[in-house]
Every structure is written in C-alpha cells, then in structure tokens.
C-alpha cells in the first residue's frame, strides 16, 4: 500500500478503549488506527484489499492481545472452512511478533468490518490481502514491547530486541517475557507504519515452513476436530434451544397458498408451525420463504414437516416452473450454433476457419452442481431486548449482519454475528439466507435461541447452484497443425440474475474467469457470449466460471493437439507462446479478480513453468500400458497458476481408474505450504467428482436429486491413488 496515495491517518483513536481493556483483562491492548479513505472520483482506481468494502486494518489493538502470563491471542476475522486461515494468519502474526507457537491462541472475530476491515471470505484472497496488514500489526506490537523493555531497563530501544517471546538487552543479556511488559507496552504510542521493521525472510520461523508434526505448528483446530469439540453451525450449546426445519417452495419463485399443519402439530415435540416470508425473484441473499416447523428437537421438526399439507402457487414462478435441465441443454447447444454478443475479437475468424487445412469443433456441457458442503446450512439466533445474537457458519459475517439487521429492522450495532467453523463453504455460505431464516424465527420466540437446520434434501433442492454451461469451440489449423483460428462461444446463466433482472449474459467478472483471458497466441480469435436465462438461484461455486471455461478450453486444446498429430504438452506450450506478461485489459478483462493488472498480469512464464513442472514430475512421454494415458491441463484462476497431469486407465468395460495426479501450483509466496498442498489435493478430488460423478438435474422446475444416493460426490474409491 502506497501511503502517499491514500493520505493515511495514524491516530491513537481509543486510549480509553484500550485502558478499559487493560483493566478488564490485564492484557496488552495496543491502540492505533489507520483509516483507509475511499478513493475519490477522479483518483486512481483501487485494487486488492484497498478496493474491498471496509478495506483493511493493521491495527494491533484489533488483532493482538497479550496477557500478563504471556499468552498471545491473535484475532482471526476470516472464515475458516478448511483452507486453514485460522492457522495461517496466526502464523504470520506470531512470526512477526516473535511469539512462541505454544503460547499462541486464536480467537474468532465477530462480524464487524468497521473494526476489522473486510471479512468476506471468498475470492481466494484472505492471505493475498491480509499477509501484510497482519505483519504490520504484529511488527507494531513487537516494537512497542521492545520500547517498554527499554524503558524498564533505562536503555536505548535500539539496544533491545524481541526474540522468542522475550525481549533481550543484548549487551547485558537481560530478558523480559512478553507478558511482563505487555501492560507497559500498551501505554506507549503506536509507532508510525513507515518506521516499522518487518522481519526479512531469514528471520521467519513459521512463515513458509512445513507445519505437520515434530513440534512445528499444527493446524490450530486440529485437536478440537479429532476430539469432536470443534464448534460448527449447529453445535453452540445454549439453554432452551428450539429447533426448526423449513418447507421451502419447490420451484424458484413459487409462493405459499395454504398449509394444513394439524398433523404436524400432533407430532410430539412440535411447538409451532409458522410461515416465513420470502422475497420472490431475484432472491439475493434473502430466504426463499416457506413454512417453518419449530420443535424441541430437530427430529421432531423433521417429522412434523413430513406431514405438512402445503399448496404452492407455481404460477408466480413464471417459466421456472417448466424448467427442464435436459431441454435447456438442447436450447443452449442450439444457440451455440449462432453468433452471440462479441466479447473479444482479433483478426478474421470466419475467413481463417474457411481457409484452414483442418477444422475441428467440440461442444462441452457442464451441468448444474450443488455445493453439498458436508455441513448443511444451519444457524442459531436469539433475540432479546432488541438485540439479536447469531451463531452461524458464514463466509461473509458482515453481509450476514447487514442482512439480519435489514430483515428485522434493527441497527447493525444490535446484531452480533458469531462466526463458527464452517463445515465446508465453497461459496455456498457466502449467502446468509439460512441465517436470515433463523433470525426471522428468533423474532417469534423472543428470548429463546432458535436453530434452523437444513437437511441434505433441503440443501440439494434449494442450493445456489453452479451455473449450467455450454461451451462450443472451433479451431482451424494449417497443414503443419499450427492454430490459425479460434472461436469460442460460452453460454451460462449469470450470477447477476440473483440480484437484478436477469442480464442474460455473463458479467465481466464471470467472463474474466478464464474466458476472455484465454492467453493463447492465435492470429484469429473470436469470443462470443450468447444469451442464457436463469431458472434457479445461481451462485458462486468454488472457482466459479473457471470450471466450465477451463474444462472446455483445456479439453479442446488436447483435441487440437491430437488433430495436429502433435504431443499435447508441446502443443499446449506452443499455444501459450513465449514467456511474457499480458495486461489483462489487453484481453478485454478489466476485472482481473479485483487485483492491480500491473502487479498481477497474466504471466505466460508462470503458465509455462507449471506445465513444465507437472509434466516433468509425471514422467511425461514415458511409455504407457494399453488403456492408460496421461491427461494434462493448465489454468489461471484467481491470480494463481495450476497445471495437472492425471494418469488415467480406462478398462474394456469403460471403467476409469485414476492412478495418480501430479499438480504444479504457483500461488506466489507461500505462508503455509502444507495447507496449500492439502487444498490442491482436495480440489483435485472435487474436480474429479465434477468431471465424472456430480450432476443436478431439474424437471418442472424441481431438483431431481434428493440426497447423496442420487447426487454423487467423490468417495475414497474415486480419489487418485496418489496426489
């Protein structure tokens, strides 16, 4: 962050606040606040964390607390859903502070972006945006500890250096533990950001280090997880809890006509049946509406719902009520035969295709997918004295807070969102509709906590589905197999349909996920996006539109190599062209994942490097037994680069075995390599599921898969034998 550019203001905003904190906990609470003014009109555009709502904060008062016994508490304000951020951000802060890992704990922040900066945990940006703010916060705290020790010893601060959980006076060898000087340090002014000394790499003890076993920092929630103590969305213990399940409209946009709840009310344990208001289309993050059954326990609520007699009005859903995913696929495939909205064009594709020696085309289809987080949505809410407290597994706690406040007519200050662990997120839990349901019910049972539980059927029927897609590609090759022409038409309903009248076309951020940013060096290219309306709630699903774009483009590149009679790897590298950096704006992408195109250009050198690394590790080119082959793909997603080689066997019966996966991943500097590897392993397994097993279909606007016996997600037997 360029401090000149943003006229940063350093202010010890809340001496009173930290003194109060000190009195209450005996803790070091360091106050400083760097406000981030929003860019004024006419100023340079903002990127990265600067451009996020509520920006970033590097205030040690907000993120670091040291008790007198030396316990260091790091506040984590990002959602933990398996990516390891509660460990990784703590590694950053602990390292910069000089803390001993054994004496560090993590505390989860409530949703409060004015205090913590942006908390919306999606877009693969937690570490990209928070590495430096966390380092600065910890460096400020370390500097204050050194200063406090210097004053205690009456020596120059420059002579004192923080080591591991102690500050040492070099010439005398005296030491003071962090806990001994925490209170004194808290009374010191916060050093200016520009004066902070950030540790160079050779002083890092945790950042970039492996963290399994042998006394190195383990995943911070690991022990709680294996002992069953970790708290997810439905696990918060409160007295007097009520449990609810909700019958939602079977078709997107359908509304309730009538309900007969007499049988449901006879189910032992059922307390009440009530309507929950929906907001129709577009649904945004609001509930779908429906009928809630509230009971003493979840099972009674489920049993009560089973015997509800509900009449729905599907006319209000418009043509969603006739939505048939198989017919829709045909519609999209037909539309892919005709030109659509032109997104990018270079040269004369029609002529180049007509003149080509070899012309190939393929159409790729990807169905709707459900996130199917293994923890179905669940949320707990309690309203008392005009204030509501929430416990929920949400990726966006501030959006949750705002949504609850809006729905209940409360001020955001009267909404406290406690963020539990997420039993998987993948974008599903960016949408707090399920929390708003709980909040609505809590209003009806003032003083009592009400927990809404989605069943798996609810989850699969009412997800914010990954968009169905058709991608049609055509290429023309010369007599040497060299690519002369590339035409790609992509068709998917847009996530924009969730928030506004259906735009029918993909938005910039959707096209920018690997469609218009295709980096191939081909003389004639034409990229088009014909119309595709939405008939269900469409939402972010891990990697989002990169999924169909990468699937289609990389599959087609393999077809082109085959048509050219060339080695797939060599041909792919040729398509990518020589190492160079491309400004994404030159490809028509002004979005670039919100990042500065100068800092995060599309780097063909990095593309090439991951291809070369993965193919080398996989022994590319080696002899394969009959029925076995190596598949290869490379993609740029959320400013990282990934290549993968799969060793696949197909037997005479057509059964597929994936023997191994070799993945090369370049995400830039690594804080927690072990968690990065685990993410890639898991993403590979999920990708295999998407490619081979998972499909949501709809008929008459209704999802046809009820549970995991019908919606297949990968099992241990589907995973590559080695990754």
């Amino acid at each position, binding site marked *: 962050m360029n401090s000149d550019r943003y006229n940063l203001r350093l202010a010890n905003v809340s001496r009173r606040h930290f003194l109060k904190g000190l009195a209450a906990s005996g803790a070091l609470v360091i106050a400083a606040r760097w406000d981030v003014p929003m860019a004024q009109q006419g100023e340079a555009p903002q990127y990265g964390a600067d451009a996020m709502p509520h920006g970033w904060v590097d205030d040690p008062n907000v993120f670091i607390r040291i008790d007198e016994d030396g316990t260091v508490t790091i506040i984590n304000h990002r959602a*933990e*859903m*398996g990516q*390891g951020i509660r460990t990784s951000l703590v590694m950053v802060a602990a390292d910069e502070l000089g803390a001993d890992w054994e004496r560090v704990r993590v505390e989860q922040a409530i949703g409060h972006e004015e205090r913590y900066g942006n908390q919306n945990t999606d877009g693969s940006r937690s570490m990209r945006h928070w590495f430096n703010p966390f380092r600065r916060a910890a460096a400020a705290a370390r500097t204050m500890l050194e200063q406090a020790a210097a004053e205690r010893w009456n020596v120059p601060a420059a002579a004192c250096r923080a080591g591991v959980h102690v500050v040492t006076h070099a010439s005398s060898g005296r030491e003071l533990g962090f806990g001994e000087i925490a209170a004194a340090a808290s009374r010191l002014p916060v050093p200016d950001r520009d004066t902070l000394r950030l540790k160079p790499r050779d002083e890092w003890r945790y950042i970039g280090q492996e*963290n*399994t076993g042998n006394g190195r920092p*383990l995943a911070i*929630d*690991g*022990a709680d*997880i*294996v*002992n*069953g*103590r*970790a*708290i*997810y969305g*439905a696990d918060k*213990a409160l007295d007097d*809890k009520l*449990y609810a399940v909700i019958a939602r409209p079977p078709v997107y946009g359908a509304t309730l006509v009538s309900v007969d709840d007499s049988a449901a009310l006879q189910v*032992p*344990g059922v307390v009440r049946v009530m309507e929950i208001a929906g907001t129709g289309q577009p649904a945004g993050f609001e509930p779908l509406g429906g009928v809630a059954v509230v009971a*003493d*326990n*979840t*099972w009674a609520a*489920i049993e009560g719902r089973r015997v509800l007699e509900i009449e729905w009005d599907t006319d209000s859903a418009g043509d969603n009520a006739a939505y048939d995913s198989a017919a829709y696929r045909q519609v999209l495939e037909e539309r892919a035969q005709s030109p659509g909205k032109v997104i990018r064009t270079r040269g004369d594709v029609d002529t180049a295709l007509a003149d080509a020696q070899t012309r190939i085309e393929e159409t790729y289809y990807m169905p709707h997918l459900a996130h199917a*987080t*293994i*923890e*179905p949505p669940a949320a707990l809410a309690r309203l008392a004295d005009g204030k509501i407290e929430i416990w929920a597994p949400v990726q966006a706690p501030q959006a949750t807070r705002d949504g609850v406040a809006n729905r209940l007519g409360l001020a955001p200050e009267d909404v406290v969102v406690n963020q539990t*662990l997420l*039993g*998987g*997120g993948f974008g599903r839990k960016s949408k707090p509709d399920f929390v708003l349901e709980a909040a609505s019910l809590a209003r009806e049972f003032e003083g009592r906590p009400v927990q809404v539980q989605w*069943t*798996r059927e609810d989850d699969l029927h009412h997800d914010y589905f990954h968009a169905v897609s058709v991608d049609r590609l055509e290429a023309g090759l010369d007599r040497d197999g060299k690519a002369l022409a590339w035409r790609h038409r992509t068709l998917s309903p847009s996530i924009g349909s969730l928030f506004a009248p259906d735009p029918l076309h993909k938005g910039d951020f959707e096209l920018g996920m690997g469609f218009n940013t295709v980096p191939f060096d081909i003389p004639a290219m034409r990229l088009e996006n014909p119309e595709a309306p939405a008939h269900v709630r469409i939402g972010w699903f891990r990697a989002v539109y990169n999924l169909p774009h990468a699937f289609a483009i990389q599959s087609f590149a393999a077809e082109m190599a085959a048509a050219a009679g060339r080695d797939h790897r060599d041909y792919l590298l040729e398509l990518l062209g020589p190492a160079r950096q491309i400004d994404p704006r030159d490809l028509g992408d002004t979005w670039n994942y919100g990042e500065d195109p100068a800092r995060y250009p599309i780097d063909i050198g990095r593309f090439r490097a991951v291809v070369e690394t993965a193919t080398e590790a996989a022994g590319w080119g080696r002899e394969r037994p009959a029925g076995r082959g190596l598949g290869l793909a490379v993609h740029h997603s959320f400013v990282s680069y990934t290549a993968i080689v799969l060793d696949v066997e197909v037997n005479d019966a057509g059964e597929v075995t994936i023997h191994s996966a070799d993945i090369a991943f370049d995400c830039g500097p690594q804080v927690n390599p*072990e968690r990065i590897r*685990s*993410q890639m*392993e*898991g*993403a*590979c*397994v*999920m990708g295999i*599921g998407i490619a081979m097993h998972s499909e949501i279909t709809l008929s008459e606007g209704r999802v046809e898969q009820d*549970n*995991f*016996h019908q919606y297949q*997600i990968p*099992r*241990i*037997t589907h*995973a*590559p034998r*080695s*990754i």
Partner: protein
Amino acid sequence: LDVPDQMPLLWALRDVVKLTGTKFGCGIAQCGACTVHLDGEAVRSCVTPVSQAQGKEITTIEAIGADEVGRRVQEAWLDLGVAQCGYCQGGQIMNATALLKQEPDPDDARIMDAMAGNLCRCGTYNRILKAIHRAAGHEEGQA
C-alpha cells in the same frame, strides 16, 4: 433418556444429551458423518433408533480418545494433517477405529472398502488412507 423410541440416536445425542461431536450430514446413512460405536461396532446414528441402542455401550467421537486404537487414529490424523474443514472427520475417525479394532492390519483395498461410506467434501481421502496405515503401524510409503 426420555425420548420417543424411534428418534434416531443422532438427534438424541445432539439435541438431548448435547454431545454435538457427532454430525448430521444426510440422514439416510449415505455419508457417515454421524458414525458412532454401539458395543464397539460402527453404526450410522442417523438411521439407528434410540430403541436399538438401549442396553448397549455407545461411544462417540468425544470419548474415542480413551480407546487405545482410537487414540492412535486421532494422532495419525493430526500427524498427517488430514482434516480440512473437519466436519466429517469425527465420523471418519470412528469408522477407521472400528475397522482397525476388527482388522489391525488392513491393506489399501480393505481400507477403501471400509471407508467408502464416509464422504469428505474437502477431498481428504489420500490422507485418510495414509493415516489409517499409520495408525496400523505400517511403514511410511506402504500407503
């Protein structure tokens, strides 16, 4: 327990006894997140009525560390960093523990067969396989 006989053990554990380590994932014995032991045998508590558990010893993830095999499985899970989100892992550990108590020396095929009913949406399967070998005392690399 004063609950209807037909109430699944899962909900009795979670909502009545307030032991929430046992997780709800599907409700139809398709995912394994709710796995507990009845007299040492792994069962899906979401489809096991409370009446079937009467008079039997119920072990949940909260107590499996008191068992020698269970403790080894938990340690292997931590050593290899198996968990990502962690939600399914209690069920995975319960199932793996039951397997190793029955069969202390399983091979890959046996492990995959035994664990095929436990879903992990994060896709931690390779590490689950390795962790079970590790808990079984197999040399590194055999997985």
